[in-house]
């Protein structure tokens, strides 16, 4: 059984702490609750990379530590790997319009309230 950590109960991704080579189940430990649940790994996920805990749609906020770390740039299936190929950060980005960054900043404020 592979292992992953969910750092906050509201997170929709977990950090893989044993490299996943499917087929195989991942035991996800929720660090605040201490209890574990299982999901199926869909693809190879290296140590330290993120696994989706539910189906994510393009544009969804990605939550880790209970805070937004960016948004999905593609649909991501539960059990899939989450990384620079399918999510993007929005802060400090000179290549994006001002409005987009402000919107994201506001969603960050909401999430932390």
């Amino acid at each position, binding site marked *: 059984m592979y292992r992953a950590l969910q750092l906050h109960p509201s997170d929709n991704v977990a950090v893989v702490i044993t490299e996943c080579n499917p087929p195989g189940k991942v035991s996800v430990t929720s660090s605040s609750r201490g209890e574990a649940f299982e999901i199926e790994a869909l693809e190879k996920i290296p140590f330290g990379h993120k696994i989706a805990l539910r189906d994510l749609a393009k544009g969804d906020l990605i939550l880790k530590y209970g805070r*937004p770390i960016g948004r999905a740039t593609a649909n991501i299936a539960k059990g899939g790997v*989450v990384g620079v190929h399918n999510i993007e950060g929005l802060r400090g*980005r000179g*290549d994006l319009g001002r409005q987009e960054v402000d919107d994201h900043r506001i969603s960050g404020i909401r999430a932390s309230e």
Partner: protein
Amino acid sequence: MGDRRWTTIEFLGYVRPNEEAGIRNYVLIVPSTRLVNIVASRIAKYVNGTKTIITGGENGRHKKDRMRLRNLYIGLSLNANVYGTIVIGAKAGFGYAEFEPSSLAQEMAKSGKPVRVLMVEECGGLEKTVAEGIALAREMVQEASRVRREPVPIGKLAVGVKCGLSDATSGISGNPTFGRMSDLLVTAGGTVIFSETVELIGAELDVAARCEREEDARRLLEMVHEAEEAARATGEDIRTINPLPSNIQAGISTLEEKSLGAIQKSGTSPIRGVLEYAQRPPQPGLYFMDGWMSSFSLPMSLAAAGCQLVIYQLGGEDLPSADPPMLATNTGVVAPLMMMTGNPRTAQKAHRNIDFSAGGVITGECSIAEAGEALLAKVCSIASGEWTKGETVCYEDPLEPYFLGPVF
């Protein structure tokens, strides 16, 4: 929060005239202008027990940046690890007023520690200044060697932290372990300073909410805003700059994700204040200091703010697989740079250079609370005289003061 048990713990330190306690006992050679870098460098090479700070210097820099460099010099001299300072100058009135040797020396002498000034003009030339500096430094290090270590409470410690080559363990094991140690030390009356302003972007609201004073929360948000605007002004996707390619390889995908992992190192204590670059905290407690994340910049900057020890909290997943070089060697100048990691694989492959591993948090061998206590015990040992692994090496990386720019 911290455990009261630690408040009674002592370390063996060098007590200074101002009651501060050093964990090392150096003589610092400061070149007041880059013209005399060669003098400071030769003296430091010749005399055991000395340290110097060689940088690109002050020329073509605006007032704010010149003040940063001035504060860096003064701060390093005031650091409790310094027994005394020799300031090297060219001649009176040479160069920018901020670096006038007599003015630097006056600020440095407020510690009550020995401060001497040597001027090339008065010594009769470059090589005569080197010769006179060597003689003076040799006398001063011998005086310094007569100071004995004595037990002092750990509340006299100020520890700085830099997290580097972050990977997924940084936010899960390494930084939380440092954070736990920080809570223990702060409860015991000590000081902890964290920094790296760009790596607050995305986590700034959580940090600001912990500031004891409203004005500090406001200043912190302003610092982050300035950093974010500077990043935006590049017109680039920040991910081509920070997170670094190595962070991304190791599983960190966005700057926000890196920041949220990075702030775990601040523990849970209230933030007593927000410091400008190289500013010394007015009283003990947990502080944030404006600073640049570079491994060649932040350690000495934290030392200038008064940290006797700087801990480098390394992720390191993306490093080469056997005996990798460290990201920085001895860039704390007067403060030893201690290497820790929360990544068990980094601990194994870099065991020749890692002083402390919290990797057991990942493998399930220990809790964050246990790792934090073990880290504080290690800090006490290093504070009492145990060398860091980096200190056993005769090499110093180049130094990069944190300048705002632009240059003219």
